[in-house]
């Protein structure tokens, strides 16, 4: 479904991704790990079509078609959704109105139906109806923002959900609800590309059901089975990179 080949990406003429290869099939679950600054968020934002991240080389296929020339909105319509590492505040825009509009446009349902769906799903993620009348992310804590990102994923039900650190800064209880909801979406057919630093969010998953990609200096340098997460947590990237000879 998603096929990334030899992807090179620059921001402000600075090359950050230097030949990324990655494939995600329908309904699959993939994890991306890697040290700070290795390019994980850059990859996520590039897939979602951020205008400042310029693809200088390589291919990017979704359902067999190049999406390189598509804007972020068109990619969303094709079924790609990015849950941001740092979702921005949008002053004056109420969550409920924003989500209603999104559902009306993406799914063609009417606003009243959208309203009910939003309130229902919001409850599952511990948002009260009042919260939905707040402005998008304004004054929300880090953990609340992550839950709001997930709420959007639950409502939109994308084909490919890219999650950029949905677990960082999140308390234990929220983490458990977030990880369960991700699994729920995945079981219902959404392919997941999850960026994380910790194995905890994957605790409930059978390691045999997902793949782990390790990123370093703008490239994916290793791909392993789910159990590799434990090894990374125990030994750290330094040791692993030395052993594999991934250091140039």
């Amino acid at each position: 479904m998603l096929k990334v080949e030899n992807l090179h990406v620059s921001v402000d003429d600075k090359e950050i991704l230097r030949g990324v290869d990655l494939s995600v099939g329908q309904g699959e679950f993939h994890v991306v790990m890697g040290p700070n600054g290795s390019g994980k968020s850059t990859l996520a934002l590039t897939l979602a079509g951020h205008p400042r991240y310029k693809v200088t080389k390589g291919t990017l296929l979704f359902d067999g078609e190049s999406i390189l020339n598509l804007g972020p909105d068109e990619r969303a319509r094709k079924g790609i959704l990015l849950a941001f590492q740092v979702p921005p505040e949008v002053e004056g825009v109420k969550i409920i109105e924003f989500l209603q509009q999104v559902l009306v446009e993406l799914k063609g349902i009417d606003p009243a139906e959208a309203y009910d769906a939003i309130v229902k799903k919001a409850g599952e993620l511990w948002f009260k109806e009042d919260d939905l009348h707040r402005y998008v992310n304004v004054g929300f804590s880090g953990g609340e923002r992550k839950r709001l990102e997930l709420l959007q994923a639950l409502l939109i039900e994308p084909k490919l959900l890219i999650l950029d650190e949905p677990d960082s800064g999140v308390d234990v209880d929220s983490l458990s609800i977030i990880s369960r909801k991700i699994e729920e979406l995945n079981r219902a057919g959404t392919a997941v590309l999850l960026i994380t630093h910790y194995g905890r969010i994957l605790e409930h998953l059978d390691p045999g059901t997902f793949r782990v990609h390790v990123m370093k200096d703008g490239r994916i340098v290793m791909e392993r089975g789910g159990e590799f997460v434990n090894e990374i947590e125990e030994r750290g990237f330094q040791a692993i990179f030395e052993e594999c000879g991934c250091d140039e």
Partner: protein
Amino acid sequence: MSETITLADAKAVIENQIEELARRNKEPEWMTKIRYRALEAFERAPHNDPVISEEQLLHFIAKPEVEGIPEHIESLEDLPAELKALLDRLGIEEVEQKYVAGLAVQTDTGVIYNQFLQEWAKKGLTVLPTEEAVRRYPDLVKEHFLRLFRVDESKLTAYHTAVWNGGIFLHVKEGLKVPFPLHLFFLIQESALAQAPHIIIIAEPNTEFHLIEGCTAPILVRHSLHLDMTEAYFGENAKGQLTVLQNWPEYVHTRPMTRAKIGKNARFINTTVGLGTGKSNTANPKYWVDENGYVELNGILLGQKDWYVDLGGEMYLQGPGASGINASKAVIMDESTVITRGIITAEAPRTKGHISCDALLLSDKSRMETYPGLVSKVDDAELSHEAAIGKIREEELFYLMSRGLSEEKATQLIVKGFLEPMLKDIPMEFLVEIRKIIELAVSGGM
């Protein structure tokens, strides 16, 4: 401008209008005298408008009407095609469309005086066309007419005073709290007279009211210059709100002149929503605030095309504990220029003032200037200001678009969101239309 018009020519035109008004309104002599004094003042008063030159002003006076606007509008079908199309696109209620087109009332200066208002009249609420108030309540009008302006301050005040016609007289008797907003439309003027409505608001002690003036639909006027004057008086502990909605056609220069005296513990919230500000719109409202009184000037400005908008605002905090806020939010597109210049003067102890100015620039050629002025004549006043002028943040736009909204839709959301906090006191039926107008403006459809 073909022929040159001299000051004497303009004076002759004004004199004719005074005579016509005196006759038409069966005006008491004292009012006609005020008009004649204004005519004299017109000659010597200074003219200092940033956009309209003296020559142009004389021209507007001699030949006030814009060409190509139908003389009589009897049904919506008589409206110019673009205006009709715009009303349709806005989806404005047919009723309002009719009001807008002046179909619901007979006279130039009519107030829609329904039964509802008549009930309230018994309780002490007077809403009358100013002309009628001059005849029926001469003492009250004398006491409050042109008390906050000097006739010779400028050629515009003098001209307005000489030819004023139309406008509202609102009087709220002591202790009366009006629980619903009073809504007054500026109607199309059928006469060839200058557009110079005069509004008088008298809120006696312990009263409450909310007056909404204008409408969201574009106003069809036949004149190039609109010169309204508002004088508001707030007694002790009176709480009033004046919301002005403006959607002028692009050939009109508007010069609203507003002044208010705010008594002890009184509150005045003055909101102006400039959806269509006309070719140029300059205003410098003034407020005098007594002990523990409060005044708030909220300006919502949508600068489009090549329009020039200049919103001032002078607040004089004269009693101890008085406070004032001058806040504006401007969305500026195309090649429009918006300037804000509030001044707050603290003249008494423990006074507080704050000026804020936020602007969102939507094009490279749009322009914003802000000149906050804070003057303190005492040592314990708290005066502050803040300004933020910027473009739409890429991160926000990307975030909204990554949820499937087009760039246009996402921009509309951000612009509406930017203005949203300022629209807090505006009744729902207008909000819906205001949002629609903003959407249309952002997508270049106005």
